Protein backbone atom coordinates (compact mmCIF):
# COMPACT_ATOMS: atom_id res chain seq x y z
CA UNK A 1 0.00 0.00 0.00
CA UNK A 2 1.38 3.38 -0.95
CA UNK A 3 1.64 5.86 1.90
CA UNK A 4 -1.03 8.52 2.02
CA UNK A 5 -0.01 11.76 0.33
CA UNK A 6 0.69 14.71 2.59
CA UNK A 7 -1.23 17.89 2.02
CA UNK A 8 -0.11 21.43 2.63
CA UNK A 9 -1.90 24.02 4.70
CA UNK A 10 -3.93 25.89 2.12
CA UNK A 11 -7.51 27.09 1.78
CA UNK A 12 -8.72 23.78 0.34
CA UNK A 13 -7.38 21.69 3.24
CA UNK A 14 -8.50 24.37 5.69
CA UNK A 15 -12.03 23.94 4.31
CA UNK A 16 -11.91 20.16 4.82
CA UNK A 17 -10.59 20.71 8.36
CA UNK A 18 -13.35 23.19 9.13
CA UNK A 19 -16.00 20.83 7.78
CA UNK A 20 -14.69 18.06 10.03
CA UNK A 21 -14.50 20.37 13.02
CA UNK A 22 -18.09 21.47 12.37
CA UNK A 23 -19.33 17.91 12.18
CA UNK A 24 -17.60 17.23 15.51
CA UNK A 25 -19.39 20.11 17.15
CA UNK A 26 -16.69 22.79 17.16
CA UNK A 27 -17.76 26.36 16.55
CA UNK A 28 -16.29 28.04 13.48
CA UNK A 29 -16.86 31.77 12.90
CA UNK A 30 -19.19 32.22 9.95
CA UNK A 31 -17.06 34.93 8.38
CA UNK A 32 -13.94 32.77 8.40
CA UNK A 33 -15.85 29.92 6.79
CA UNK A 34 -17.32 32.19 4.11
CA UNK A 35 -13.90 33.71 3.44
CA UNK A 36 -12.31 30.28 3.02
CA UNK A 37 -15.10 29.02 0.75
CA UNK A 38 -14.78 32.17 -1.35
CA UNK A 39 -11.04 31.62 -1.69
CA UNK A 40 -11.52 27.96 -2.66
CA UNK A 41 -14.35 28.53 -5.12
CA UNK A 42 -12.64 31.36 -6.97
CA UNK A 43 -9.30 29.63 -7.57
CA UNK A 44 -8.77 26.74 -9.98
CA UNK A 45 -5.78 25.43 -8.05
CA UNK A 46 -7.75 25.36 -4.81
CA UNK A 47 -10.65 23.59 -6.48
CA UNK A 48 -8.32 20.88 -7.75
CA UNK A 49 -6.65 20.63 -4.34
CA UNK A 50 -10.03 20.32 -2.64
CA UNK A 51 -11.08 17.46 -4.92
CA UNK A 52 -7.76 15.70 -4.32
CA UNK A 53 -8.07 16.16 -0.55
CA UNK A 54 -11.63 14.83 -0.49
CA UNK A 55 -10.61 11.84 -2.57
CA UNK A 56 -7.69 11.08 -0.27
CA UNK A 57 -9.70 11.51 2.93
CA UNK A 58 -10.32 8.36 4.93
CA UNK A 59 -13.79 9.47 5.89
CA UNK A 60 -16.42 9.73 3.13
CA UNK A 61 -18.59 11.87 5.40
CA UNK A 62 -16.14 14.75 5.28
CA UNK A 63 -16.75 15.11 1.54
CA UNK A 64 -20.47 15.16 2.20
CA UNK A 65 -20.09 17.94 4.77
CA UNK A 66 -17.88 19.96 2.44
CA UNK A 67 -20.44 19.59 -0.37
CA UNK A 68 -23.20 20.73 1.97
CA UNK A 69 -21.21 23.80 3.04
CA UNK A 70 -20.59 24.64 -0.61
CA UNK A 71 -24.29 24.29 -1.44
CA UNK A 72 -25.19 26.56 1.47
CA UNK A 73 -22.69 29.11 0.17
CA UNK A 74 -24.20 28.85 -3.31
CA UNK A 75 -27.66 29.53 -1.87
CA UNK A 76 -26.27 32.56 -0.04
CA UNK A 77 -24.68 33.89 -3.23
CA UNK A 78 -27.97 33.36 -5.08
CA UNK A 79 -29.76 35.34 -2.39
CA UNK A 80 -27.25 38.16 -2.72
CA UNK A 81 -27.68 38.12 -6.49
CA UNK A 82 -31.46 38.38 -6.17
CA UNK A 83 -31.14 41.26 -3.70
CA UNK A 84 -28.79 43.05 -6.07
CA UNK A 85 -31.18 42.56 -8.98
CA UNK A 86 -34.11 43.84 -6.94
CA UNK A 87 -32.34 47.03 -5.94
CA UNK A 88 -31.21 47.56 -9.53
CA UNK A 89 -34.73 47.20 -10.88
CA UNK A 90 -36.47 49.12 -8.12
CA UNK A 91 -33.97 51.93 -7.58
CA UNK A 92 -31.34 51.93 -10.33
CA UNK A 93 -33.68 51.88 -13.31
CA UNK A 94 -35.96 54.52 -11.86
CA UNK A 95 -33.08 56.78 -10.86
CA UNK A 96 -31.90 56.62 -14.47
CA UNK A 97 -35.37 57.28 -15.89
CA UNK A 98 -35.98 60.14 -13.47
CA UNK A 99 -32.72 61.81 -14.44
CA UNK A 100 -33.40 61.30 -18.16
CA UNK A 101 -36.88 62.78 -17.72
CA UNK A 102 -35.45 65.76 -15.85
CA UNK A 103 -32.91 66.28 -18.63
CA UNK A 104 -35.65 66.30 -21.28
CA UNK A 105 -37.82 68.59 -19.14
CA UNK A 106 -35.02 71.09 -18.63
CA UNK A 107 -34.34 71.09 -22.38
CA UNK A 108 -38.02 71.65 -23.03
CA UNK A 109 -38.28 74.44 -20.48
CA UNK A 110 -35.19 76.11 -21.90
CA UNK A 111 -36.48 75.85 -25.48
CA UNK A 112 -39.93 77.15 -24.55
CA UNK A 113 -38.32 80.01 -22.70
CA UNK A 114 -40.01 79.26 -19.35
CA UNK A 115 -36.65 78.96 -17.66
CA UNK A 116 -33.85 81.09 -19.00
CA UNK A 117 -30.24 81.96 -18.49
CA UNK A 118 -28.22 80.50 -15.64
CA UNK A 119 -31.15 78.52 -14.22
CA UNK A 120 -31.69 76.68 -17.52
CA UNK A 121 -28.00 75.93 -17.85
CA UNK A 122 -27.75 74.80 -14.22
CA UNK A 123 -30.77 72.49 -14.49
CA UNK A 124 -29.48 70.89 -17.68
CA UNK A 125 -26.08 70.34 -16.12
CA UNK A 126 -27.61 68.96 -12.91
CA UNK A 127 -29.88 66.48 -14.66
CA UNK A 128 -27.14 65.44 -17.08
CA UNK A 129 -24.72 64.69 -14.26
CA UNK A 130 -27.52 62.89 -12.43
CA UNK A 131 -28.01 60.66 -15.45
CA UNK A 132 -24.32 59.87 -15.67
CA UNK A 133 -24.11 59.19 -11.94
CA UNK A 134 -27.09 56.85 -11.93
CA UNK A 135 -25.73 55.03 -14.99
CA UNK A 136 -22.43 54.48 -13.21
CA UNK A 137 -24.26 53.22 -10.12
CA UNK A 138 -26.26 50.77 -12.23
CA UNK A 139 -23.17 49.52 -14.01
CA UNK A 140 -21.52 48.79 -10.67
CA UNK A 141 -24.59 47.06 -9.31
CA UNK A 142 -24.93 44.89 -12.42
CA UNK A 143 -21.31 43.84 -12.32
CA UNK A 144 -21.73 42.82 -8.66
CA UNK A 145 -24.78 40.83 -9.71
CA UNK A 146 -22.70 39.02 -12.30
CA UNK A 147 -19.96 38.25 -9.77
CA UNK A 148 -22.55 36.76 -7.40
CA UNK A 149 -24.07 34.66 -10.19
CA UNK A 150 -20.63 33.37 -11.12
CA UNK A 151 -19.84 32.51 -7.49
CA UNK A 152 -23.14 30.67 -7.16
CA UNK A 153 -22.56 28.60 -10.27
CA UNK A 154 -18.96 27.83 -9.34
CA UNK A 155 -19.96 26.71 -5.84
CA UNK A 156 -22.78 24.52 -7.19
CA UNK A 157 -20.49 22.81 -9.70
CA UNK A 158 -17.78 22.30 -7.11
CA UNK A 159 -20.30 20.81 -4.67
CA UNK A 160 -21.38 18.28 -7.31
CA UNK A 161 -17.79 17.34 -8.07
CA UNK A 162 -16.94 17.02 -4.38
CA UNK A 163 -19.84 14.56 -4.00
CA UNK A 164 -18.44 12.53 -6.90
CA UNK A 165 -14.99 12.63 -5.34
CA UNK A 166 -16.38 11.58 -1.96
CA UNK A 167 -17.80 8.44 -3.55
CA UNK A 168 -14.27 7.31 -4.35
CA UNK A 169 -12.88 8.57 -1.03
CA UNK A 170 -10.10 6.56 0.54
CA UNK A 171 -9.48 5.31 -3.00
CA UNK A 172 -6.85 2.70 -2.14
CA UNK A 173 -9.06 0.38 -0.18
Amino acid sequence: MTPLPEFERRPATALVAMANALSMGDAIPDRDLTRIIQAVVSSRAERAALLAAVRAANDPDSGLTVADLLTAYAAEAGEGEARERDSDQVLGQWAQRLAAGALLASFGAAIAGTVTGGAAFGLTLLSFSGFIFSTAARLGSRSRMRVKAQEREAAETLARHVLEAAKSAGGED
Partner: protein
Amino acid sequence: MFEALGLNMGLDTVIVSAIAGACTLSFAASVYLFYRAKPQPEAKELDDIVQNAPYHRLHNILKIKA
Protein backbone atom coordinates in the same frame (compact mmCIF):
# COMPACT_ATOMS: atom_id res chain seq x y z
CA MET B 1 -50.50 79.31 -11.14
CA PHE B 2 -51.59 77.73 -7.85
CA GLU B 3 -53.25 80.95 -6.73
CA ALA B 4 -56.24 78.93 -5.55
CA LEU B 5 -53.93 77.35 -2.96
CA GLY B 6 -52.77 80.73 -1.78
CA LEU B 7 -49.33 80.12 -3.26
CA ASN B 8 -47.80 82.80 -5.34
CA MET B 9 -45.41 80.88 -7.56
CA GLY B 10 -44.56 81.47 -11.16
CA LEU B 11 -44.50 78.66 -13.68
CA ASP B 12 -40.72 78.84 -13.82
CA THR B 13 -40.41 78.26 -10.06
CA VAL B 14 -42.64 75.19 -10.30
CA ILE B 15 -40.68 73.74 -13.20
CA VAL B 16 -37.29 74.49 -11.66
CA SER B 17 -38.24 72.93 -8.34
CA ALA B 18 -39.81 69.88 -10.02
CA ILE B 19 -36.68 69.22 -12.09
CA ALA B 20 -34.39 69.87 -9.13
CA GLY B 21 -36.50 67.49 -7.01
CA ALA B 22 -36.35 64.76 -9.64
CA CYS B 23 -32.57 65.17 -9.83
CA THR B 24 -32.29 65.00 -6.04
CA LEU B 25 -34.26 61.75 -5.94
CA SER B 26 -32.14 60.30 -8.72
CA PHE B 27 -28.93 61.29 -6.94
CA ALA B 28 -30.18 59.86 -3.66
CA ALA B 29 -30.99 56.50 -5.28
CA SER B 30 -27.58 56.36 -6.96
CA VAL B 31 -25.78 57.25 -3.73
CA TYR B 32 -27.68 54.47 -1.99
CA LEU B 33 -26.65 51.99 -4.70
CA PHE B 34 -23.01 53.04 -4.32
CA TYR B 35 -23.26 52.91 -0.54
CA ARG B 36 -24.57 49.33 -0.64
CA ALA B 37 -21.61 48.33 -2.76
CA LYS B 38 -19.05 49.10 -0.07
CA PRO B 39 -17.50 45.76 0.84
CA GLN B 40 -17.52 44.62 4.45
CA PRO B 41 -14.15 45.11 6.11
CA GLU B 42 -12.26 41.85 6.34
CA ALA B 43 -11.90 40.69 9.90
CA LYS B 44 -8.76 38.63 9.34
CA GLU B 45 -6.30 37.92 6.60
CA LEU B 46 -6.89 34.78 4.57
CA ASP B 47 -3.43 33.49 5.50
CA ASP B 48 -4.27 33.83 9.19
CA ILE B 49 -7.45 31.80 8.78
CA VAL B 50 -5.65 29.14 6.74
CA GLN B 51 -2.86 28.77 9.28
CA ASN B 52 -5.22 28.60 12.26
CA ALA B 53 -7.81 26.23 10.80
CA PRO B 54 -8.61 23.26 13.06
CA TYR B 55 -6.26 20.80 11.35
CA HIS B 56 -6.11 18.62 14.46
CA ARG B 57 -9.60 17.42 13.52
CA LEU B 58 -8.12 15.83 10.38
CA HIS B 59 -6.14 13.42 12.48
CA ASN B 60 -6.57 9.93 10.91
CA ILE B 61 -8.57 11.40 8.02
CA LEU B 62 -6.04 13.38 6.03
CA LYS B 63 -2.32 13.86 6.46
CA ILE B 64 -1.40 17.52 6.74
CA LYS B 65 2.18 18.76 6.72
CA ALA B 66 2.97 20.30 10.08
